[in-house]
């Protein structure tokens, strides 16, 4: 390995970490402002001047300053590790997302599998947090997380498999290269299933049964304060970024845009990510929370059959066109 090669890798990783630190904050800010406007409330407008842009930074500073509280009965080690376990997988996934032709931190042949596998690990963070808090709300939240994960993992993987079949490769870069605009129609069902299942895995509204602040306070996060709570929030926004990035890459052509050359790739991808993030926020604001039985019903009676139908459609089209 040459020095240039090492430098190349290091540079890419630094870029990824930078994006990882920046993008979730942007999404968070977007959520704050979009929600505020949608719900016709102004929200903080002073921090940093324009539209209170520094409010999120101020929140972060506030979190850092807050006291670390660990419940007496809690499993201290697991309690402390949980935010890291929840956050780190998203960083790893981000490293595998191609942002332009050849512009990817780590190009894995089985990239999609890697992404899905690592994503599923992050759920462990919630479960760990829920169990180790020694709080019944937290425990209930942890168990809801586990149940939700098990239910939505299947349609998620099946929808991803549909794209993989269409593209004939597991590599994320390969999928982007194989993508054609008419896939928007062909893989529409898979896209919906993937996106919805992803939302559920992230426990974003309307699938936020595990958090459900009106029922079980804040689920696994109930006992968390200060920086650790901030890390969980960061993990949530990082999750949104990763989900949107994966959806964009798999179903929306990733860095490919309707015009402009390949050098505009990162721009196109970012645009798609933020568009999808806006949809996530929009859905959160506009839909009520599902009950747990509705949640399971949606997964097993709608999403799984839909993804299976999509898989069959993909197979048929694939055979016909080849």
């Amino acid at each position, binding site marked *: 390995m040459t020095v240039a090669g090492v430098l190349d890798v290091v540079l890419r990783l630094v870029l990824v970490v930078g994006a990882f630190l920046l993008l979730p904050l942007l999404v968070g800010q977007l959520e704050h402002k979009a929600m505020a406007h949608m719900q016709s409330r102004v929200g903080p407008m002073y921090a940093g001047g324009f539209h209170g842009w520094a409010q999120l930074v101020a929140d972060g500073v506030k979190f850092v300053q807050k006291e670390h509280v660990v419940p007496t*009965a*809690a*499993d201290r*080690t*697991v309690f402390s590790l949980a935010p890291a376990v929840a956050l780190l997988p998203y960083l790893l996934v981000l490293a595998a997302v191609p942002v332009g032709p050849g512009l990817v931190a780590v190009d*894995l*042949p*089985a990239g999609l*599998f*890697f992404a*899905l*596998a*690592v994503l*599923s*690990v992050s*759920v*462990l963070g919630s*479960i*760990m947090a829920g*169990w*180790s808090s*020694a709080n019944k709300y937290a*425990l209930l939240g*942890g*168990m809801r997380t*586990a*149940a939700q*994960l*098990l239910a939505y*993992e299947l349609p998620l*993987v099946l929808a991803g498999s549909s794209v993989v079949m269409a593209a004939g490769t*597991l590599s994320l870069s390969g999928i982007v290269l194989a993508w054609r605009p008419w896939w928007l129609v062909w893989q529409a069902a898979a896209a919906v299933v993937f996106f919805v299942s992803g939302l559920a895995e992230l426990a974003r509204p309307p699938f936020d049964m595990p958090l459900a602040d009106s029922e079980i306070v804040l689920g696994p996060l109930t006992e968390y304060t200060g920086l650790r709570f901030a890390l969980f929030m960061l993990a949530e926004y990082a999750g949104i970024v990763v989900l949107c990035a994966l959806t964009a890459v798999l179903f929306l052509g990733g860095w490919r845009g309707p015009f402009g050359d390949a050098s505009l790739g990162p721009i196109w991808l970012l645009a798609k990510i933020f568009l999808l993030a806006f949809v996530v926020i929009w859905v959160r604001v506009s839909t009520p929370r599902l009950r747990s039985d509705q949640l399971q019903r949606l997964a097993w009676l709608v999403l799984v059959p839909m993804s299976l139908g999509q898989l069959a459609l993909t197979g048929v089209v694939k055979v016909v066109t080849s």
Partner: protein
Amino acid sequence: MTGAELVFVPLGAVALGSSVLVVTTDQLVRAALWLVVALGALAGCFLLLAAELVAWVQVLIYVGAVVVLLLFGIMLTRAPIGRSVDLDSGNRVAALVVALGTAGTLVTVVVGGFRTASIDLGDGSAGSAGTVGAGLFRYWVLPFELLSVLLLAALVGAIVLSRRDIGPRARDGGED
């Protein structure tokens, strides 16, 4: 020692150490978490052996599904936080003897048998999705299909076992 070996040995140590912790820790949930570590380290070992697809499947299925299921089960059976005094049965000594005997025998045999054998990893394409997929669907189709039937049977079985409105009534209420 090659580079791969240099990485493999610590990974293996992690896998072995955490698996020992899985069977010795006196905290149930931590056993499951150590199992995650052990399985992750093993996935790394698979990667080093050029079995990429297997490694990711390992993480996806084992860490993402199996361990979550196990944790789910642990929580449903009301595991306590902290130490449990009774995680080990009275069978420990015999188990230790048998396990050490197994380890001794197996290590002796495999070291004797494979002392000089060496793996040539080649271009690393042996474990790619394409190769494995081709092998799977070209030569292993029948077992693959059988496996799907097995999974279906397991699915049905699990549903029958856990639903209370099917099959014989439970004798006492018990859990929620």
